[in-house]
């Protein structure tokens, strides 16, 4: 397990460096782009005196560098401060938006796994067959459609043609869990479809490769059925190699959900992120960016750990 600890440490260092760089870039961007938080909050009808008073109250009159280092100091202690424009603690605001973003990511992941594995299994059995060709073509088309465009098409189809979906209707999980899931399924599908195509393409290739492997020939000579070989040998083998792909897909899914929730009008992290930018709310924006960076690093780390657990070659350090 020594290598696992080492890789965890490396990941941690990577994460801290990423977080530091990201916060520095965010801060630099805020220093360059025009816009004054206090003026945005009060609007054009407020007098210069009122804006000045609010600027003072929010501590915006201190030099930028000083504000950044203050923020950094507190962030190191785990205190991300309060949002300038909402007045609530940043952590509280982020966690209030998580049910949407995390829920969507999770459902999308389930779609990816549940659809791409069977598709790949079917295709890899007879590469070049009609079935394989038509599924592969469908995959290519899906892969080429960006999620936001797909979102608009699906919204039109499901709400205006079928009348079974209302864009923008969102029920918090605490109110009605079924309705909560229902409100997230379509957006999750929009995020998932291009990723399904990507995962499918990878899995298909790796399954074809494995199905030509020696162990499959051996299994065949022992008289195992094709189905048994697929379930017991080919899928588990490609699952290991696909974990890295899936962890990549997952961070894409989180990024995708930030965009798709705009189209579907859902109160998720993406909307909060946009609000933070348009209100020039540095603490809130840094908090969200930090959180997203952290999630990405954690996902990669988990992928490492899971690979190690299920693949003895990695676990024992036998892999390259």
């Amino acid at each position, binding site marked *: 397990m020594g290598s696992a600890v080492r890789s965890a440490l490396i990941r941690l260092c990577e994460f801290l460096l990423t977080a530091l760089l990201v916060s520095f870039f965010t801060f630099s961007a805020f220093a360059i782009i025009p816009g004054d938080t206090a003026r945005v909050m*009060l609007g054009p009808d407020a007098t210069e005196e009122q804006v000045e008073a609010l600027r003072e109250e929010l501590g915006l009159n201190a030099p930028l560098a000083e504000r950044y280092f203050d923020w950094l100091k507190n962030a190191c202690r785990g205190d991300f401060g309060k949002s300038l424009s909402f007045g609530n603690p940043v952590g509280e605001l982020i966690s209030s938006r998580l049910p949407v973003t995390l829920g969507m990511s999770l459902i999308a992941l389930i779609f990816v796994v549940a659809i791409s594995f069977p598709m790949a299994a079917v295709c890899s059995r007879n590469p070049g067959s009609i079935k394989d060709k038509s599924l592969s073509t469908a995959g290519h088309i899906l892969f080429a459609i960006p999620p936001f465009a797909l979102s608009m098409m699906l919204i039109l189809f499901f709400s205006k043609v079928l009348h079974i979906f209302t*864009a923008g209707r969102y029920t918090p999980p605490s109110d009605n869990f079924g309705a909560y899931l229902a409100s997230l399924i379509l957006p999750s599908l929009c995020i998932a479809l291009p990723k399904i195509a990507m995962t499918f393409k990878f899995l298909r290739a790796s399954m074809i490769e494995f199905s030509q492997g020696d162990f499959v020939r051996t299994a065949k000579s022992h008289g195992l059925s094709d189905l048994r070989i697929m379930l017991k040998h080919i899928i588990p083998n490609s699952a290991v190699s696909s974990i890295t792909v899936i962890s990549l897909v997952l961070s894409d899914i989180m990024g995708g959900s930030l965009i798709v929730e705009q189209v579907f009008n859902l109160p998720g992290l993406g909307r909060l992120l946009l609000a933070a930018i348009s209100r020039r709310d540095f603490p809130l924006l840094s908090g969200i960016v930090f959180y997203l960076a952290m999630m990405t690093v954690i996902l990669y780390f988990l992928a490492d750990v899971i690979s190690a657990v299920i693949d003895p070659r990695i676990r024992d350090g036998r892999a390259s």
Partner: protein
Amino acid sequence: MHNGNWKKILAGALTLALSFSAAACSKESDTTDGDAIYGGEAVVGITQEPMVFDPHTVVAAGDREIIFNVYEGLYKYDSTGTLNPCLATDVAISDDASEYTFTLREGVTFHDGSEFDAADVVYSLERASELLPELASIESITDNGDNTVTVTLSTPNSEMLSNFTTAIIPEGSADTIGDTRIGTGPFVFDSYEPGIGIVLTRNENYWNPELPYLDKVTFKVCADMDAGLLELQGGAIDIFPYLTTDRAVQLDPNTFDILSLGSNMVQALFLNNDVAPFDDVRVRQALNYAVDRGEIIALTMDGAGEPLTTAMSPVMGEAYDTNLDGVYNQDIDRALELLAEAGYEDGFDMTITVPSNYLVHVNTAVALADQLSAIGVNATIEQVDWATWLDRVYTDRDYEATVICLTSDYAPYDVISRYATNNDGNLINYSNPNVDEIIENLPLTIDEDERISMYRELLGYMTEDAASVYVQDPANICAVNNRLTGYAIYPMYIQDMSTVRLASSN
């Protein structure tokens, strides 16, 4: 590029204009005769996250319109824009307009049960005069001991009464008012949850025993107008103000009353008077003659707007000069003549900087650019985000032209005082010594008729100077589920829920 947009707007406008004119506009939802129904609740959709509840530090219109139901001042506006006695029953203004003596209403209690009296008035106005620029001219407030309070001003101001709508809060509550939110209004502040909304409940001990009707009012935060519209159609929201016409026509007229009223806002193509060629009055006049306001209103608001030729909306009443109506009716020949006189017979290039988050202003800019091309003016539209607009255009005045709405309270002085040469809000760098003098003298003038003629004189100067291309007072459109009645649109940012009631008991 803007040609495509233009066609899109035109197509949209044509389809919507018909349907909207059918859902015709009134300013109050139908009132039923007979006994009014008490009880029930209503949900109002808001698209802005509330922020500040201290009535003396609140600035955002979105906050003020909500706490109007919770706090009250000595005087209070009604939906016609008239000031009525509220916590005062009467006022006596000294002949030189430097002393206002208020007789206070008796038997009023705050939401916490404590008695309202002169000490609260003195305390609140003293605090407010330190925090609010419009009350800064208060020199002293005296409790006369006979349930009257006298306010003395350092500079006489005949239009001060509108500023006494400032909230009266319990004596000594300065440090807690932002959290306790105790006022005397028809509704009691119950709770606020960020991202969710504000709940108000009926004030059982309101001094006017007939009001309010509803037991509970919720101001629910919607992500944006479209999200709110869906909730309105789904029945989660009953009242949704500040709709655009294209959204309003989507609503079923059997379920919703669509109300509309001039909003007392001034939308214009503001021209930076310091920047060439707009430093030449002939160029500014030429642009005014080049524009067809009726067409722009039809395209951007489906006709739900009042054309403007000057810096004040006709909604403002007496202070507005109806002689100015139609002064700058479209006259392309006149516009070309003026441009030629100014040495721009071949036209010129200009940039209109618009905040991208306001679709109406972006569309107006597109329509304006198209109309201006008829006189050889080639306008490029630059969209910037709101924060950038505030910084670059409003604060730094680093722009050529912009489209925006200016709002103000229902006080003509607030509307025009920003055009004084040195005013912080004078975003167009307008400067006319005659106008400066009138703005300075207006508060010192007691006689109502004289003040009105001063306003009209001032508007005359501004029209002659073609300070900017004033376009329209866009109507404020509100949808109300017809299970409710009694809602009234105000010509300012106020959501008065005290008169709203259920239309029938089932």
